[in-house]
């Protein structure tokens, strides 16, 4: 009997001890002259940019990450959970769907991600949860799903690298915009994390709290990587693989050359379609790696290379899925800016200017207010000079629409931090924010209107657009957007008038939008009973060649073809339907 009691006591003691180990393993946060320190890690806010130094074992790094990089972990957690489908159910059906999806994810997706994720990153996630919860929790489910959720989203990013003849000093400059409409509200939580891991190379990543993987970063060996989505066919996707952000992290931590990085990517069980821009500041050289879950091809070029959101390698084009993300226009602009406007001059500031490009090019005889490389869902922008270990990041503020590339850029000497492990006394430099005046002032309004319209806030969008049009009556994109917004608000005649003005412009910067404009004109002519004119515009819409719209794209083409046969109608909410 006594023996049994001893065993029970022993088990309880061990259980208690194991719980207190975790609580005791959480270092205290010490604030010293604006520097927040926890263990070997620290965090500072430098000219509006949060910089963290994370050092030690995977668990220690995770704990420092959880303690230092989140001021309000619960608020952040809630924001991430709110992005899940059926996060805020309004009825029993949605509640049941939410329960089913969550249960399924826990038993199917989560174990699959766990199986593929290196133990080191699992320990780091566990550390993060411990740190963020101040030792209260260690269930990594939400963090893992947050990291893996990036495999289920669609975003439109741009990146380029230029070196040799293209740049002012022959060094490699790497520009990158992270554009993600679904994550805009997380932009204010961004940070630059400088890692000093127990194993592997030291590296720096632009990131968000809870992300153990990354979408952009640079390591001490001068290797840089960033990811852009590229929609792949369904059969080229796999959920049973390593979430891609971990793959990028793996590259930064374990590859010193492009060849080593390619070997890691090749041997990773991948999940989705991506174009990865991979650069080595030492050689200097850069390549674009185009991948799906199963396939991989490498694109090379002399002196410069860029990537938007589509495959350009002939072998990979076969696996491109539908969905238009304005890739052709951004590629065209990158090509023009690098090879014509800035050839031989590219430095940090010009690289920043390229990421800030808002179209139209010089000599374009009309106000456009469209997107260039820069646009309204740009949530982060950065420039890296890997040969010097420089990491320049746009310091976004708390605005709902951050317009990151137009914010001021803070230069950080990552190499100095890797070497000393101490916070920088000063930034490398500041690149000023775009002044909000003249054309730019109205560009921000027009782009904000586009985002608001996409979010179903037509009235607010119209308000902004009218302001733009009152100053620039021939503004290309505002005319189109206002036309569409007016139709949605039920003001068909006014909508038609705006679209007619749009169609009558001499130049149209983006074929997709011209196709869109003709289509909506056709629809409004159908609403007022002018069938002949409607058919004419459906035909015009179908005749517009959109280079970067894959043939499987349904949307406008599908409806325009139907519109040729029968008059399309509008719902009270302004949506098209085939009667």
């Amino acid at each position, binding site marked *: 009997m006594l023996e049994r009691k001893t065993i029970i006591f022993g088990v309880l003691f061990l259980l208690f001890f194991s719980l207190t180990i975790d609580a005791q393993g959480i270092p205290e946060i010490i604030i010293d002259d604006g520097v927040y320190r926890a263990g070997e890690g620290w965090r500072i806010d430098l000219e509006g940019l949060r910089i963290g130094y994370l050092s030690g074992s995977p668990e220690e790094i995770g704990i420092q990450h959880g303690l230092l990089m989140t001021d309000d972990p619960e608020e952040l957690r809630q924001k991430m959970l709110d992005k899940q489908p059926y996060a805020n159910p309004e009825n029993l059906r949605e509640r049941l769907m939410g329960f089913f999806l969550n249960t*399924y994810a826990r038993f199917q997706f989560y174990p699959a991600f766990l199986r593929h994720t290196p133990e080191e990153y699992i320990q780091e996630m566990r550390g993060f949860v411990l740190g963020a919860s101040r030792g209260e929790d260690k269930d990594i489910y939400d963090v893992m799903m947050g990291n893996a959720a990036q495999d289920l989203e669609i975003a439109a990013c741009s990146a380029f690298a230029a070196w040799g003849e293209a740049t002012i000093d022959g060094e490699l400059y790497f520009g990158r915009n992270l554009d993600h409409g679904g994550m805009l509200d997380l932009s204010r939580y961004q940070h630059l994390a400088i890692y000093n891991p127990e194993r592997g190379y030291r590296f720096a990543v632009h990131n968000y709290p809870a992300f153990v993987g990354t979408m952009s970063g640079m390591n001490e060996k001068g290797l840089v990587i960033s990811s852009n989505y590229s929609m792949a066919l369904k059969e080229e996707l*796999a959920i049973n*693989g390593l979430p891609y952000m971990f793959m990028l992290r793996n590259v930064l931590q374990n590859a010193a050359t492009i060849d080593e990085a390619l070997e890691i990517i*090749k*041997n990773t*069980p991948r999940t989705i379609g991506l174009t990865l821009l991979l650069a080595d500041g030492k050689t200097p050289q850069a390549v674009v790696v185009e991948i799906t879950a*199963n*396939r991989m091809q490498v694109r090379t070029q002399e002196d410069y290379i860029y990537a938007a959101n589509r495959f350009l390698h002939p*072998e990979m084009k076969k696996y491109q899925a539908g969905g238009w993300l304005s890739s052709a226009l951004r590629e065209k602009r990158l090509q023009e800016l690098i090879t014509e406007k800035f050839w031989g001059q590219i430095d940090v500031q010009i690289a920043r200017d390229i990421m800030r490009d808002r179209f139209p090019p010089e000599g374009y005889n009309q106000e456009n207010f469209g997107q260039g490389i820069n646009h309204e869902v740009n949530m982060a922008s950065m420039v890296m000079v890997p040969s010097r270990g420089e990491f320049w990041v746009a310091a976004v503020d708390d605005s709902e629409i951050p317009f990151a590339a137009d914010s001021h850029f803070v230069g950080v000497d990552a190499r100095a931090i890797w070497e000393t492990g101490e916070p920088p006394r000063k930034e490398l430099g500041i690149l000023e924010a775009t002044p909000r005046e003249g054309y730019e002032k109205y560009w921000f309004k027009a782009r904000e209107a586009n985002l608001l319209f996409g979010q179903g806030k037509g009235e607010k969008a119209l308000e902004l657009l009218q302001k733009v049009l009152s100053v620039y009556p021939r503004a290309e994109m505002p005319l189109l957007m206002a036309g569409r917004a007016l139709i949605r608000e039920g003001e068909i005649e006014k909508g038609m008038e705006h679209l007619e003005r749009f169609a009558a412009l001499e130049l149209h910067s983006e074929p997709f939008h011209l196709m869109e404009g003709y289509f909506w004109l056709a629809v409004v002519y159908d609403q007022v009973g002018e069938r002949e004119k409607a058919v004419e515009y459906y035909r015009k819409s179908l005749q517009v060649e959109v280079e970067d719209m894959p043939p499987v794209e349904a949307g406008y083409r599908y409806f325009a073809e139907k519109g040729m046969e029968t008059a399309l109608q509008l719902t009270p909410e302004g949506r098209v339907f085939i009667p």
Partner: protein
Amino acid sequence: MKYFILTILFFSLLCFPVLGAEASEELKIEEILVLGLTRTEEKVVLSQLPFSEGDYWKEEYRRWTLRRLQLLDFFAYDPLKVIVEPLGNENCRVIVRVADPEVLYKEPIEFVFTKGIDLLFRQFNLSLFNPGGMGSNLYFQGGWGNYQHLGITISSPIGAGKGSAGGKIYSNSTGFYDERGLEFKGEYRGWFYPSIRLTGGIDYRTGEINEEKQIIFLPRGELYYNNEFRGEIKASLGVPFSGEDLFFRLQGQVVREFGPLVGVARGGFISGDSPPINYQYRLGGYGTIPLRGQPVELARNYLLGTVEYHFQAGQFIPIIFVDGGWYSPGGTEGLITLGAGMAMEIPLGVIRADLGWDPVRGTTNFNFGFGHSYRPPF
């Protein structure tokens, strides 16, 4: 009626083989990459591949590889792919993309669904998928009620195939016939050509059937063909050690699809006047030999033909069918079944319900099952 039955048999037997040579591409395999393993050792997959580095790629390798990997029964349903990636120098890289599932299930919905069905039929079957990473699965079977049994089987890759050993370590059932005793099975299966699978096995059974002692040793061989048509031939020799006569069993099935039209021909034969009841064929019910307008029957010989027409209507697949044939001893005068049904594709496969009517006997029967009636023989 004889001519009508013969017509059905004739149409269903239009399942002649069309053996076509597959075009080969002149790409040399420079590298083989196995991606996605987290538990299984790479050599388990490599041992199943019908090609190696330095070979020239042939398109038939893809199907062959997938069939061999599926036969092992321990990879997740998705992804399971063979990808050939040109390397630009007349060489290629072959990527075998697989994934280990959880040890207890490949797909959680399937697990819940099949366990629910098990419980409904008073049984419980559990598979452990490759827990040790060397490619061995463990299968446990148990049943209660009228069909009490307890069994265990272990399977393992051996060469480019799969061996398994196990059986029922206890059975006591009082269903169609009373059965008690033990049963051991050992077999080896493998795809030895992209379209041909062979199985060789030995069964040993000792116990009682309807309270009569039965000890039987049964070597067997099976051949499956799956290409433009599907076919199977199974042969076995029953060697009783309990006084009964030696018996020989031969069974076959051919399935051919012509668009929405499917022809199926099935036949079975057992030698001798009174072969053991538990080795006779069971027609109808949940078995693989349909008898859709009549009650479940035992037969020593049968020849059945089916012509079925089905088409896709949204999620549903309406079906019209005609079965014809004869069996002995109960149905030597021949049978015809006219029927209609509905199948539906769900994420786990096809569920199907149909109603068959025998105009000669005047009987009707409602049938429900998983998969099409012309389900693939393997």
